[in-house]
Every structure is written in C-alpha cells, then in structure tokens.
C-alpha cells in the first residue's frame, strides 16, 4: 500500500520530509500529551542530501514525502546528526531505498549506528569538517552530550539553515510547521518541558555552546530541530529561552510535590502551599500518584522553591517519591530553595531520604526536614503553613538580592 504524503518546502533548496506522530503519548516515559514529530529534511543541491530520518514505523511516511519531491534513488548523501532511534530508526529503510554514496555522522555516531543497524557505511566527521554539495556546503559542529555522545549539528550555508537535531526542539504534533504560526505560550511551555526532561543535566554545556555560537561565524537565519515546529523568526527569543532554562535562575514560583497513603502528607502539603500563597508567591501542589513524572519535572524546573513530601513505607521513602527523586537527581536540578517533609507511623525514613537527596544536590534547605506521626495535629498544620510562608519570603529575598 503506497502512502500518500507530501513534502513541505522550508527554504529555496530545502524540504521538510519528516513524520507527524499525532498519537504518541509515551515517549520513553515522557508524557507527550500533544504528540510529536520526527523532522527530516531534504536538501536539493547538486549532491542531494537527506538530513536525519524518522522513527522506524514512520519510514514509509518519510519516503513518501521524499518521493513527492524527487525519486529517493537520486539522493547522494545522508547526514545523521543524532543516533537515537527516533531519528535513526528509519535509516536502514532509507539506505535500502536510497543507496547513498555516503552517510555522514560523528565518530561516536558511527559507533552507535553500527551497534543499532550494523555497518551501513559511515563516514565520520567532526567540528571543522564540511562536505561540498555543489552550490552550497554542509558544515558540521560537534555537540557531544547534547544530549548523546554522538550528537552534532549541521549548517547549510546556501540557505543559512542550522539543522539542530534535538536542540531547540519540542514534542508537539501540529500541522503548522513554523513556530511563529503556533501560539508562543504553547511553544514556550513545550520547549521548557523538553529542556527540563532531556537537557537539564547538561545545562552548563548548553550555556558553553550558546556562548561559542557567535565565534563559529555561522550566519543562521533558520533553525530546524528534529522535533516540533521550526524557527525562522525572532531566533533571539528561542536562544534566550534556552539560556533561561539552562541558567536555572530562581523564579517566584513554588511547587509542592507529594505522595500520600492516608491523606496525612497531603494535609501537610496543602498547609505548606497555603502558607506560600499567603505571601503572594504562585504555588501549586502536585500529587505523584496522578501526575506524570515528566510533568512533575517541568513544574520543578519552573519553580524557585520546591517542597517534597512523602510517607514512609517498608522503612523507605514511598515508591512514587523514590521514582521522582531518582529522576530529578539524574537531571541535576540546582539553585532552588528546598523543603523535605512527610508523615510516618514509626520509623520515618521517608522525609530523611528526601532531605539527604536535597543535600546531595546542594539545594539550600533553610528549614530542617519536618515529619509528623500518623496524622498532623492542628498545631502541626499551622507549623506547615508557617514554613510555607517563611520559605516564600526567603525565595523573594533570594530573587531580590540577585
């Protein structure tokens, strides 16, 4: 069955030939509640070049879009900027249809692709290398660990485009290809979510890369990421948004993340949140049993004050909290005022383990961990309210003293 899909032109010599995954909701554990896209691009030059591919089940969609512009066999080169399977899964199918002369990838990309798909014939490139396409050329820039060892970006000088792989991308399926055709609030939220869940741990590398960009001497007019809408207007805005995410500077917002078995920790969480609210600081509570891990991380990244509360179960912090603790530790959140709390029957490891994690992450804890037995009594709920108010004030001070 031949699929019917068309390419969309993005610049005089480049076409979008990716795939739209409208119904993906779980992307390796990331809740993609608006779906995603896997962007691939076709450069029509003397040497015709395909930049990145799509997730394996979408190979037909990509090949159909390519065929709407040109017979795939006419393609000479494939560039693989990132070896993760959402961008390389369709590589074997693409190679079979295209029979490319060369496949360009980073040295780490060649190793990784070889392990995934066997030797399809890779040519390793690094920063400073470029390939002449006839009228224009593609220059490669290593972006190691942003966010895999193989990651690189490609600049096509003829149309002044940067193929940025996962960088500047977001999980969002939409029919309007350009970011400026979609609401900025959605763009901002989804970029922040993507950054928080995929790039947060490499924040310092992101800043270093952004700082090094001007020195690379690339005249970038359009940024083409591998997920979600593409950037052609106000590039400063998206670059500044990335810098903001990477700086993790304190913002006047708080989130109270909790798990609860019999409602006790929830009572503490709500009292604390109301204390925060009483000082005019925006706050929300998030129950771990109904909120997805990736959304919790987005809230945590967007807060200057975080409070984590959990019961103790089997002498351990409650499992849903252990999961999110493991996740935020890996994502290396920083520069936050933190508060650990919980409720327990007898042993009370829960809140202690949370406080220990905050210490390990070097988060400021102006107030000691606070734990109640069985059910908070009215004097204790008041203490939680006061704790929320006090930490909200501390947050405002921290922001004002910056």
């Amino acid at each position, binding site marked *: 069955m031949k699929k019917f899909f068309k390419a969309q032109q993005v610049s005089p010599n480049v076409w979008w030939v990716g795939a739209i995954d409208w119904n993906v909701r779980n992307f390796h554990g990331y809740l993609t509640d608006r779906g995603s896209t896997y962007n691939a691009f076709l450069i029509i030059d003397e040497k015709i070049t395909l930049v990145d591919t799509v997730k394996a089940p979408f190979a037909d969609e990509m090949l159909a879009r390519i065929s709407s512009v040109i017979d795939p066999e006419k393609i000479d080169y494939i560039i693989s900027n990132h070896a993760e399977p959402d961008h390389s899964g369709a590589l074997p199918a693409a190679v079979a249809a295209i029979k490319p002369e060369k496949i360009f990838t980073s040295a*780490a990309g060649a190793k990784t692709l070889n392990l995934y798909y066997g030797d399809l014939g890779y040519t390793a490139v690094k920063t400073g290398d470029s390939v002449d396409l006839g009228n224009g050329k593609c220059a490669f820039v*290593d972006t*190691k*660990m942003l966010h895999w*060892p193989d990651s690189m970006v490609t600049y096509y000088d003829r149309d002044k485009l940067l193929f940025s792989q996962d960088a500047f991308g977001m999980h969002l399926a939409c029919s309007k290809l350009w970011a400026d055709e979609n609401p900025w609030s959605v763009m901002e939220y989804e970029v922040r979510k993507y950054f928080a869940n995929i790039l947060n741990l*490499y924040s310092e*590398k992101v800043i270093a890369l952004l700082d090094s960009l001007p020195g690379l001497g690339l005249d970038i007019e359009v940024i083409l990421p591998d997920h979600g809408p593409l950037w052609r207007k106000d590039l400063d805005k998206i670059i500044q948004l990335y810098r903001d995410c990477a700086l993790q500077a304190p913002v006047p917002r708080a989130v109270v993340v909790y798990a609860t078995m019999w409602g006790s920790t929830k009572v503490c969480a709500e009292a604390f949140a109301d204390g925060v609210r009483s000082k005019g600081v925006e706050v929300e509570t998030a129950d771990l049993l109904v909120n997805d891990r990736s959304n919790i991380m987005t809230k945590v990244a967007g807060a200057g004050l975080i409070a984590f509360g959990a019961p103790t179960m089997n002498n351990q912090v409650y499992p849903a909290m252990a999961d999110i603790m493991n996740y935020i530790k890996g994502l290396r959140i920083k520069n936050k005022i933190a508060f650990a709390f919980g409720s327990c029957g007898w042993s009370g490891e829960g809140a202690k383990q949370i406080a220990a994690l905050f210490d390990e992450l070097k988060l400021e804890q102006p107030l000691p961990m606070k734990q109640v037995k069985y059910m908070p009594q009215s004097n204790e709920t008041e203490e939680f309210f006061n704790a929320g108010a006090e930490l909200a004030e501390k947050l405002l001070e921290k922001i004002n003293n910056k």
Partner: protein
Amino acid sequence: MEKYVCNICGYVYDPAKGDPDNGVAPGTAFKDLPESWVCPDCGATVDEFEKAE
C-alpha cells in the same frame, strides 16, 4: 601531570584541578583516581579516558 580526555563526552580531567565536587583533591594524578571515579559529565568509567594530546 598529564591531562586525560573522556572519549565519550570530551570532558578533560586536569590533575591540577582534580574533581573536588566528587572528592578528588587538586593535584591527584589520573592514575591515582579512586576506582569508583567516573566522568563527572557523562558517567563514563576511567577506561574510556585517553591521554590528551
């Protein structure tokens, strides 16, 4: 003392600086790193490191 570079992510271990965040004092040679030490950027083990050029 020689610097070593991580093959996976490009992190450079500089003995003069050590890795104080992970308990390695300045002046610690690469060969004297504790066995449990991993690349602070990507988590790779010491066998992924090569002498820097």
